[in-house]
């Protein structure tokens, strides 16, 4: 039986928002989900369902608070770990809007991230030459030019380049759990194919994926084992890949009313 990677149990989480009267708003309202190694789960839902909040809560972004229930990742209570510790322990969030870091060299960024993980695992840090050998194979797989390494992280990247760079980081860091937040947004069809192929190459028996998406389109290229529909902070319906098709044909309202 496959190992359980992530267990989300009755998760309630709120966002701290100063513009609101009481300064906070509950977004996740009793979410339950279990991911096992080797599985690909897709979470779909209308805008405002709490999809991106889920990604941020799992990754440990500041400004969110778990008020009830919890998340266990690799037998550890996620709430006890900072965002950087979660990442070093094998959780990866591919951002919907990757952040531009002017002046932060891409190669240095990638090597620092990889070495942080290696230090945590008690492995030897890679030197510049070793790192370059490794990253070149990943670049080639994603049809990325080596000149990426000389640029500042995400600065001036096109939408497609940013998403490819996210997948490059995922390939390099070899996470146990990869969360893709609206990875298809801002991608044209060619970029979508390359990014999807990158993700498919990373599918493995020891890795789970949580794919957050608004549209069914991405799931034509990355076939999920399970599809969950999220609305108002909860999973309201779960099924296999055919649920996504059904959703595409009938829309959220009809599915949720059924």
């Amino acid at each position: 039986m496959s190992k359980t990677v992530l267990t989300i149990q009755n998760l309630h989480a709120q966002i701290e928002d100063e513009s609101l009267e009481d300064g906070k708003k509950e977004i996740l309202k009793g979410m339950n989900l279990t991911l096992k190694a080797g599985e690909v789960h897709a979470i779909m839902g209308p805008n405002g369902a709490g999809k991106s909040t889920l990604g941020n809560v799992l990754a440990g972004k500041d400004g969110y608070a778990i008020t009830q229930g919890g998340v266990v990742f690799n037998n550890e209570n996620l709430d006890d770990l900072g965002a950087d510790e979660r990442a070093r322990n094998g959780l990866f969030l591919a951002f919907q809007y990757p952040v531009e870091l002017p002046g932060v060299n891409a190669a240095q960024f990638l090597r620092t991230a990889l070495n942080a993980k290696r230090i945590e695992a008690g492995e030897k840090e890679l030197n510049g030459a070793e790192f370059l050998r490794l990253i070149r194979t990943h670049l080639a797989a994603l049809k990325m030019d080596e000149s990426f390494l000389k640029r500042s992280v995400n600065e001036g990247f096109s939408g497609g380049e940013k998403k490819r760079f996210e997948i490059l980081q995922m390939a390099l860091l070899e996470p146990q759990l990869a969360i893709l937040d609206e990875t298809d947004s801002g991608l044209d069809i060619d970029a979508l194919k390359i990014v999807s192929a990158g993700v498919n190459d990373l599918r493995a028996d020891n890795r789970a994926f949580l794919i957050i998406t608004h549209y069914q389109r991405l799931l034509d290229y990355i076939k999920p084992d399970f599809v969950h529909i999220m609305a108002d902070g909860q999973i309201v319906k779960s099924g296999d890949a055919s649920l996504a098709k059904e959703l595409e044909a009938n829309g959220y309202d009809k599915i949720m009313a059924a």
Partner: protein
Amino acid sequence: MPQFIIPKPTTRAQKEAFCFMATRHFARENLRAEEPLFHMFGDHTTILQNSTLHSGDWQGTVAAGRTEILFEIITGNPDDAVLTDAQTFDIHTGATLTHVRMHIGGHQHVIHRKVTAKLAENAVYNQFTLTTGAAASRVETHAYLEGEHAHVNLQGLNLIEGSQKADSWADIQFIAPNCTANVEQRQILDGSAHASFQGKFHVHQAAQKTDAYMMCKNLLLSEGARTSQKPELEIYADDVKCSHGTTTGQLDDEALFYLAARGIPAHKARAMLIQAFAQEIASKLEYAPAHTAVHDHIETYLTK
């Protein structure tokens, strides 16, 4: 009058600067200076015995068509040393002067430096100033663009902490038409440090088609750090392009989260972003030995 003393260089940056400036000193037929071009507060005992006041006025001329480089490092540890000097450069037609200054001495120094640059037609004055030392520093640059198509390029980086104060002042006088200027200042302030920046573009009536840009970016790392800016435009010509801007902020939370989400510990993430902010302006230094020295100093300073 040994007001400027050249101590034995010890660090890599000093050695590079020293070798370069020593060469320049012997081969500088076009730069008439009475004093050595390389001056340095040293931690050499001779300096302490002589005087802790260093002052000087000197002039340099860059002959038509020549390219000259002046790379100064002000360093050392005497705790009450004062440097005050005035430099005047005459940059003739088509000539370029690249002037790099690293004020990286003890935190008790007081530095007051004034540069006056006069630019003839097609002349270029590039200046880069890095300040991490000195309890108080004031650097003034007065540029006179007297010939058409002259260009001034000023870049400054103040990287200060504790109770340090740094004051940067640029006054660019556009006298002839078709001249350009680019003034970029960055300040990284920690503790209760205070940096101020005043930049003035004075465009005379004849100076049509002036194209001038001024930007000051501040990164505040503490509650107590302060910054003041005063951009000034005084324009008497009617066909010019002058712009100025300023930004002041802290380290970006989104950027810190992005780095954390890649497993990079918080202290390292902060250091990476501060380095990036500083190195971005240093990367504009084209003169390689100075670029290396500035880059290395920033890196060492920020990882101390």
